């Protein structure tokens, strides 16, 4: 297990390298010059030259990449072109906010999704299954930014029970675990949970239905196990599949939802990305995407390890 862990971590190094190269290139392929975003339109050419030298945009791209990567490895992602703030500082605080929001959404989404999916799979073809499936389809089909706005209209505007935007009273971004702050989490977390509910539900449902059709379930009943024990076996059998999907979904959630975070002005990575894109803030963009991509790589390793632990058929020692 340890050797597999080490190997798996080593595998992720080239992946991370490839990812960073892609990120660097993509941002430079996109139209728009970062200098033109900060310098006034009528700035004289020598000023623009100076700015280019200051920010390092005068060097050839491979050199820029090497320099950027070298600094990134030490945790320095440069300074924001727009605000002059340290990118890593801003990204880290945004990542913290996004993690908090996504974990809440994941908690809601995975519990509901797996629960509904299990009930539906166990009652395949019956009314309960159809109801649960309808919820899942609705969850996947409804545009969630629209749902977010509807929730805001209902709960913030009409009923006036929950705050519409931000993550603290008066737009403060200092978090505390009290009701005044936590109520800001509710609407965005629910909105964000809708897609994972649908996807986890469908996966769980089909996995449960498939396992129930296997002969060993009949064999378990034949040896006199109570239905509760049989279901225990089913859970253990569907766990690898469902966990894999949950891991991917958590990855997407941690990637931050640009739409949801923008709708609710949640100061997370999605919100940060959105702002950076509009400001042509290339260092900020690169830094944020890099951190998110590394998250995804890391999460895949974790899911792999968990799967290996739950499913004896996956032998990777």
């Amino acid at each position, binding site marked *: 297990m340890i050797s597999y862990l080490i190997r798996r971590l080593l595998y992720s190094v080239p992946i991370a390298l490839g990812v960073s190269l892609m990120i660097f290139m993509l941002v430079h392929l996109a139209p728009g010059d970062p200098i033109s975003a900060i310098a006034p339109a009528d700035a004289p050419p020598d000023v623009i030259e100076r700015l280019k030298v200051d920010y390092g945009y005068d060097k050839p791209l491979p050199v820029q990449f090497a320099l950027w990567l070298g600094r990134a490895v030490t945790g320095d992602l440069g300074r924001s072109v727009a605000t002059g703030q340290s990118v890593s500082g801003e990204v880290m605080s945004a990542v913290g906010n996004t993690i908090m929001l996504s974990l809440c959404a994941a908690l809601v989404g995975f519990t509901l999704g797996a629960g509904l999916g299990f009930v539906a799979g166990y009652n395949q073809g019956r009314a309960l299954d159809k109801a649960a499936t309808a919820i899942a389809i609705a969850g996947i089909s409804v545009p969630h930014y629209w749902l977010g706005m509807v929730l805001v209209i209902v709960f913030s505007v009409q009923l006036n029970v929950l705050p519409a935007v931000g993550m603290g009273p008066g737009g403060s971004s200092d978090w505390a675990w009290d009701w005044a702050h936590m109520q800001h989490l509710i609407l965005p977390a629910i909105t964000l949970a809708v897609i994972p509910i649908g996807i986890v539900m469908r996966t769980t449902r089909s996995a449960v239905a498939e396992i129930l059709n296997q*002969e060993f379930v009949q064999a*378990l*009943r*034949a*040896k*006199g*196990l109570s239905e509760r024990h049989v279901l225990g076996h089913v859970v253990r059998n569907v766990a690898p599949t469902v966990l894999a999907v949950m891991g991917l979904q958590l990855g997407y959630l941690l990637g931050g939802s640009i739409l949801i975070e923008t709708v609710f002005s949640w100061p997370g990575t999605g919100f940060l990305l959105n702002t950076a894109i509009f400001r042509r803030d290339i260092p900020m963009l690169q830094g944020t995407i890099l951190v998110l991509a590394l998250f995804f790589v890391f999460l895949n390793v974790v899911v792999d390890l968990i799967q290996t632990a739950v499913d*004896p*058929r996956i032998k990777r020692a």
Partner: protein
Amino acid sequence: MTAALRQDAAPVAAPARVPLVSVEGLTVKFKGGDGSIAAVNGVDFTLERGKVLTILGESGSGKSVTLKAMMRLHPARKTTYGGKIMIGGRNILALSERELVQVRGSVVSMIFQEPMLAFDPVYTIGHQIAETVVRHEGVSRRDADKRALDLLEMVQIPSAARRLKAYPHEMSGGMRQRAMIALALSCRPDLLLADEPTTALDATVQMQVLVLLRQLQREMGMAVIFVTHDMGVAAEIADDVAVMYAGRFIEAGPVGPVIGKRLHPYTEGLLASTVHGASRGERLETIPGSPPNLAKLPSGCSFAPRCKYVEQRCRETEIPLFKPEPDHSARCLRIDR
């Protein structure tokens, strides 16, 4: 080991001549999307302790369905049972769900055709055997593990202690089936149901498993219902044979007379189509046609469409059971003559 197992078994004080199993007018119908399927259409038999009944038939004859009905294993929502199944004084078809799970695995247990599919792939063999013991005998996990080890040794699995910790996919087919037998025998059942337990195995392993099964059956004094389509296997293990066709026993009796006299043309056809029945160089005979559609059975004799002796009257009436000898019966009008 086996001696220890037998010691514990309470002396069976069965009243004389009351059979362990008695089945009367068993019918099994499955509700499907397009109408119902009559898989078993009136099966009667009795089986005494320590005896082996083999149900012989081709695929779709209803033999496995009959077997699974013996512990009401078909999905309750889609299945309608009729008739009566008495096992050790209990009517299986009238038991509550709670009583039923007490009987399954302890009084009646089952060996499945494909051991790879019949074990839960994510638990060890040892766990799955011990789980059954804990379930039925309420012993501690440790004792159950010890018992699992004894059982694996009883079915002659080499290095049993190591195999306890093995997962099903880590064992060979023959070994898995031995483990399945160990599992089925773990709570000393009175009745063992065996659903083509040797069909999925290599020919050499088949024989070993069969011999083991017969040896254990004799040592433990179990009754066995053994389902197979292999005449040779049937002759090897059976005391009684029942030949099944379209959900009915069309011929039943002790193994010698059934194979020797073959009252029913279908039995005759089955024997002619096996290598055991033909000698070298002779062409094997096949039964023309295929088994009837159970959703719409023909009136009269259900074998009539494939029978080479068919007459007009075969298609007209239900064929009664003829008993030319007290314990040998068949459903064919030709016996009447």
